[in-house]
């Protein structure tokens, strides 16, 4: 396989933009990514588009040609990829594989989602379609309730970590204050999180990621080709893993360790020849506060059962041992589903290039992204190294 690097990134601000169309979001983020790579768009050989809910929420399908037309990419091949909240990372992995194989030298990956023009109930129902519609959504399960059951089981096995869960939200909000693209620009406290509007015990509204509109794009190129034109620090994709698990919660071997994460992470670390201790920063899928804690354990940053204490001790904060979600994460930067995985990559590349501005980490040479779909039924882990 050929070495592949990220050469361009672009994203919209995440937020509530009910009047902004899918096309406008695509145009802004896609144009930024192409310009950021310093390449003319004629060099883009294929487009991989991620989107979860264009059809049900906006009546728009066939996102591949839509995006290619908006961006003026001509007759290149396009495809739309869907894997619930992991859609963006899945599109990235397909694009990576297409360049690594030698099929293309330069490809564009994009993700877009428009959600806030729908009611909360409609969004909840739409997302619940990423669970089993007969055995879960059909009996009243929502994603908050599924992950709330995971939290209750975690409490049973490892003790009540309610305060540390709240601290995840507090930290991610704190980080988002330094990110101009973040939807949430508001400091919150542990008490506010715990006393917020109840969603599914033990979650309040502050334990849940945001409903967002937004788009994010990433340009990939074969590293040897990229060296000839890319003016910025090359960010090489050194590891990529993907694994799956049962769609339903009840069929999982464990509720408190996500098998798909463990397997995808193992693949990514093996491919990169790196260990968890060598990662400088990570963007980790925090769809709910408990999920961030479980994920940091499954990724090997902390021993199982110690993820909550690590948060409370500040180990995951921006100045901690392993900064988690410096961008603000799904909780505070936002979670426009199809764009999320690419937004995580946007943050890692920004940090590895040293372009993080007020949120720039002192040491950022190796970064990791972790993205799950559904009840951790799909997982992609990527590892990036600045050259």
């Amino acid at each position, binding site marked *: 396989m050929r070495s592949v690097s990220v050469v361009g990134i672009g994203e919209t601000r995440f937020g509530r933009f009910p009047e902004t169309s899918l096309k406008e979001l695509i145009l802004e983020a896609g144009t930024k990514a192409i310009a950021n790579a310093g390449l003319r768009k004629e060099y883009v050989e294929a487009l991989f588009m991620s989107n979860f809910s264009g059809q049900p929420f906006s009546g728009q399908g066939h996102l591949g040609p839509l995006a290619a037309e908006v961006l003026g990419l001509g007759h290149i091949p396009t495809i739309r990829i869907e894997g619930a909240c992991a859609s963006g990372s899945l599109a990235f992995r397909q694009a990576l594989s297409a360049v690594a194989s030698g099929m293309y030298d330069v490809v564009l990956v994009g993700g877009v989602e428009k959600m806030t023009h729908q009611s909360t109930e409609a969004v909840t129902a739409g997302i619940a379609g990423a669970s089993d519609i007969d055995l879960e959504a059909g009996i*009243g399960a929502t994603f908050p309730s599924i992950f709330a059951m995971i939290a209750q089981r975690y409490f049973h096995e490892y003790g009540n970590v309610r305060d540390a869960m709240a601290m995840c939200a507090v930290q991610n909000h704190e980080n988002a204050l330094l990110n101009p693209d973040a939807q949430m620009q508001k400091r919150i406290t542990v008490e506010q999180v715990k006393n917020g509007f109840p969603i599914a015990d033990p979650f309040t509204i502050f334990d849940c990621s945001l409903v967002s509109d937004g788009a994010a794009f990433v340009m990939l190129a074969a590293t040897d080709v990229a060296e000839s034109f890319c003016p910025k620090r090359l960010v090489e994709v050194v590891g990529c893993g993907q694994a799956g698990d049962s769609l339903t919660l009840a069929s999982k071997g464990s509720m408190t360790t996500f098998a798909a994460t463990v397997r995808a992470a193992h693949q990514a670390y093996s491919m990169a020849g790196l260990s968890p201790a060598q990662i400088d920063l990570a963007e980790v899928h925090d769809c709910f506060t408990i999920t961030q804690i479980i994920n940091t354990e499954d990724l090997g940053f902390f021993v199982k059962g110690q993820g909550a204490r690590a948060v409370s001790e500040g180990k995951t904060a921006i100045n901690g041992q392993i900064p988690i979600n410096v961008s603000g994460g799904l909780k505070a930067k936002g979670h426009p589903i199809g764009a999320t995985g690419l937004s995580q990559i946007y943050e890692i590349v920004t940090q590895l290039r040293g372009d993080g501005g007020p949120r720039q980490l002192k040491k950022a040479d190796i970064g990791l992204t972790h993205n799950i779909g559904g009840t951790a039924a799909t997982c992609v882990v990527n590892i990036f190294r600045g050259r």
Partner: protein
Amino acid sequence: MKRCGAIYSFCVVHSSTEAFQGKTPYVLAVVEDNRKKLMARVEGYTEKTDIAVGMEVRFLAEDEKGNPIYSFG
């Protein structure tokens, strides 16, 4: 003999999709029944119900799609 299950995990749902809005708050649980785990609604919840992992729940009926429903007490 009455069919029973044990709560493996649970949650009280306060915010639902439109289809279940009249039912909130309601309890969903993963129930272990005859060594199999399945997700089910558990009826009979009040604010005084102290739910815990391991708690016994009684099989009540199947819904129209064949999904089992359990009950507290």
